[in-house]
Structure formats: C-alpha cells, structure tokens
C-alpha cells in the first residue's frame, strides 16, 4: 500500500466525484464563472467533496487512535458508544437551548462524547475477561443503552424527526455554510500526527509506557479528547457514519502494522477514498436519487467487518 498510489487514487476519485451528479457539469462549464453550472459546482459539489474527505479521514483516524489506546482492534466510535453519546449530547443541547447554535450543540455534544468514551474505557478497565470480540460487544450494548435513552427523551419532547437527521449520515445536504465545522478536524488530525508515537507507546500498555517515561493516563485521556472532537464535528455536519473507524484502520494495520506515525497518513487517505467511493456508488446506483452514505458504508462496511472477524485467527 504505497502512499503515492493512495494520493493518486484520491485525486482521480475527487475529480470524478466533482462531475457526478443530477445536473451534468463538465469542466468546460466552469470557464464561465457566471454560469449556473459553476454556481452548483461551488455551492454544492466542492463542499460535498471537502466534507467527504474530511469526514472519511477524520473518522478513520478517530478509530485508529481508539484501537491503539484501548489495545483492541475492534474498538471504534461505533463500537464504543462514542457516536451514541454524541447523539445524546445533541439532544440535550436541543432541549436545553431552544434554538441551539452550532457552537452550543458542539460544546454539549463534545462533553457527552468525551464522557461516554471515558465511561466505556472505565468499563474496559474493569472487565477481567478481555476477549477481542467481547469488548466491542459490550461497547455496542453500551451504545444501545445510550441510544434508547436518547430516543425516549426525543420522543417525549417530540423531536424524533429532528434527531433522525443525525441518525443517518448524508452528504446530499452538504452545501456552502453547512460543512465548515468539519474544518476543526484539520488541526485535530495534525495534532494526532504529532502525538502518533506517544499513542503507539501507550498502545503497548501501561508498564511499557512508564518504562519509556510516558504519562500513560494523560496520553490516553488526551487521545480520547481528540477522538471525541472528531466524532462530534462529523456527526453534527454529516451524521453517523458507522464502521468507517473500524474497518479502515484494520485494513491498513494488516498491510502496514501499528506504527502510528507511519500508518496515520495511509489511514486518513484510505478512509477518504473509501467514503468517496461509497458516496459515488450511492449517487449512481439509483440515479437520479441517492442512497444515504451511512447505508452504503453500513452495508459494505459490515461485510468487511465480518471478513475481518473471520480472519482474526491469523491476526489480531
């Protein structure tokens, strides 16, 4: 898995993505800045592409960090309750502030996402039976409990309709002015890269980290803050994208190992490519309608996840 090939793949797919859609736009149309096509391109197509790349890279990296810190290949925002905690946070912000601004929503959701993830890590510490598959099952159950709480209160407050917007990831509404929050993930990704070596050491365990002079708890908590930040920005703008943070880091790990500083760029690129592919498929399959991205990723992703589970004997 060469980084050069991944970059070329991403560029080619990005260009394709820009010119796939209901209204046909050709590169020639863009010469005329005033044309309708150029407007669609700038207001809808380009933001959509940027959002997909940032969300794909972000969720994959979030998963990679979680897997390293929890020392379990099957832990990710999907399987550790982070996504569900985020949704609960969004609900609370909507109930607390009648017309919650993006920043209010984000702050409350961030607090919930972080608290939910920390709680899961606490549960993880207490479980004696550390089976690789058992842990994500606990995480899924934990997530479902949070999700039921969310649904209950959303139902009571009559905001189910509103909440479901965050249930399913969807890029069709990505337009100028609705995706900019995702830019937060750029500095977060850079910070993640700078701390990559510390995360790798933390992934080797508490004793190992202490031997190498690392404050284990501090690094774990810091990593989880990054994960929560990425998850919140993605869920708030795009919605839930399941499995992405699970399968992408696992695929990269098989080929490139777990040296985070070396695998982080690959993981980010592959995540963006995978999401872009799913998005284009979703747009083309029932043209001119669209299959939501979460459904596409869910179907393809769960297939790959099953495959990873079955080959676990040889690896992980």
């Amino acid at each position: 898995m060469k980084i050069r090939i991944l970059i070329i793949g991403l560029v080619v797919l990005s260009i394709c993505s820009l010119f796939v859609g209901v209204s046909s736009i050709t590169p020639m149309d863009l010469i005329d800045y005033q044309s309708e096509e150029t407007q669609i391109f700038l207001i809808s197509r380009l933001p959509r592409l940027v959002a997909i790349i940032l969300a794909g890279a972000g969720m994959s990296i979030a998963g990679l960090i979680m897997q390293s810190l929890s020392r379990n290949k099957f832990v990710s925002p999907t399987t550790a309750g982070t996504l569900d905690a985020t949704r609960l946070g969004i609900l609370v912000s909507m109930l607390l502030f009648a017309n919650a601004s993006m920043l209010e929503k984000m702050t409350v959701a961030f607090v919930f996402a972080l608290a939910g993830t920390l709680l899961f890590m606490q549960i993880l510490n207490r479980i004696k039976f550390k089976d690789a598959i058992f842990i994500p099952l606990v995480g899924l159950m934990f997530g479902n409990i949070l999700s039921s709480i969310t649904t209950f209160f959303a139902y009571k407050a009559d905001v189910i309709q509103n909440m479901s917007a965050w249930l399913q990831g969807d890029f069709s509404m990505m337009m100028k002015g609705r995706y900019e929050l995702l830019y937060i993930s750029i500095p977060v990704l850079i910070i993640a890269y700078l701390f990559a070596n510390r995360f790798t050491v933390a992934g080797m365990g508490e004793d190992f980290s202490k031997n190498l002079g690392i404050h284990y708890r501090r690094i774990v908590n810091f990593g989880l803050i990054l994960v929560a930040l990425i998850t919140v920005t993605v869920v708030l703008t795009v919605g839930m994208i399941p499995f992405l943070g699970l399968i992408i880091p696992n695929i990269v790990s098989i080929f490139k190992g777990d040296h985070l500083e070396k695998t982080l760029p690959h993981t980010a690129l592959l995540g963006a490519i995978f999401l872009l592919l799913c998005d284009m498929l979703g747009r083309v399959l029932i043209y001119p309608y669209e299959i939501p991205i979460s459904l596409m990723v869910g179907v393809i992703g769960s297939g790959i996840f099953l495959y990873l589970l079955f080959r676990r004997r040889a690896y992980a």
Partner: protein
Amino acid sequence: MIQVRGLSKLYGKKVVVDQVSIDIVPGTITSFIGPNGAGKSTLLSMVSRLMDADTGEVLLDKKNIKKIKSGELSKKVSILKQSNQMNVRLTVKELVGFGRFPYSKGRLNDQDHAKVDEALTYMDLHDLEDRYLDELSGGQRQRAFIAMVIAQDTDTILLDEPLNNLDMKHSVQIMKILRRLVDELGKTVVIVLHDINFASVYSDRIVALKDGKVIKDGLTNDIIQSTALKEIYDMDIHVQQLNNCRICVYFNSALQGE
C-alpha cells in the same frame, strides 16, 4: 546506584513485600530468587516505579525516584515485565526503535539509529528485523524486547522473569547476553529468576525473598549452600561443584548423597 529503604507493599491486608532494604551493587548481576508469592516481582515493580510502594523509598544516586522526572528516569532505569502479551503489530526494528523514545520522542536521529543497530547486533536479530512481532516465536519475541531495553541504554536494567516460556538454548543465550552487558558495557542488571541454577551460574549476587522479607542477601557463592537454600525453599537441596559452577540438585531428595 539503587538503594531500597524500608519498602513495603500491601494487597488489602496481606503484606506482600515487608520492610525490604537492599543495595543494588553497580556493575553486577543481582538475582531475586525465592518461592512463589515471595514478593520478587512486586519488589521489582516498585524499584522500577511501575508500582507505588505503601511505605519506604527507592533511591537512585541518593535521590528518591519519585522526585525524578519520568522522562529522566527512563534514561537511567529500564524494566521489562514478564507478560508481554502485546497485540501491537510492530516490526522488530520498530520496537527496538521505541527503546530510544526517552531520548528522541520517536523521531530517531543518526545516533539513535546507531544504537538500534547495535542492539539488534547484540541480540543477533538482524535477520528478523523486518518481521512483525506477531509472526515470531516466543523466544524471538523475548529477544526483541530485550533488544529494545538495550537500545534504551540505561545504566540499570530490571528484568522480571525473562526466561519464562523459553527453551534451554534461548535461556542460556539470554543469560550470556546479560553477562556480556555487565562485563563489557558495565551495566547493572537485576533479574527475577525461577531457575535457581541460572541464578547460581550467571549472577554475582543473590537476594532471596520469602514471605515478602529478604532472608538472604549476598554473594552468589555464599547463598548457593545447602543450609541457606533449605532456609529459603524449605527443602533439601544438594549443591554440586561442576566445572567451577555450583549446581543445585533438587529434583528428588531421595537420590541425594548417593
């Protein structure tokens, strides 16, 4: 030089390590021996700061190790624990490279690469350097971990049962390398051992623990004696002189004296 002063550890009400005071003599191999549950590993964990002591203190060059910054300490004392069930997929070379973490924080410079190379040579791991840890046998993996500790280049190296799960050949290989670390590079090695004959043949000093207390602390030859061993292990152990080595025979006490 490491000095242990009045160190104790309690698990609930059970005293696991009881008022231990020892000096680790620099430039030697010191073996911790004793029956199961004597507190050897717990003592080593406290000396290496992996575990907090309930009472007492560990001094490194007369300074309490709790007062030393963890980044600094990791350049002076390294520890390898017995269970290294890691599922991190790193190559041998990457793992050994992390031994340089206290110096370079992961961005290896030329000097770090030289040290990594040296450690790989020392452990005879160049053939395996690009293999992933999960593809190696237990013995090879253990050698990789020890290479990492060598790359860490600390004056004192603490090892908790490094011979666990190793066959005879690899056990001897690792003990010989530890001997060379002491004799050639002037390192201080402290090691928890189960096999009393490895302790006898390769170490300079022995600290014997029983029920959390130090009951013997001295030169190897003074401790590998039937009377002393009887006190430590509650069993008759016959000591035979064999080519300058003192070998303990304990497999069947009925055979002794024949």
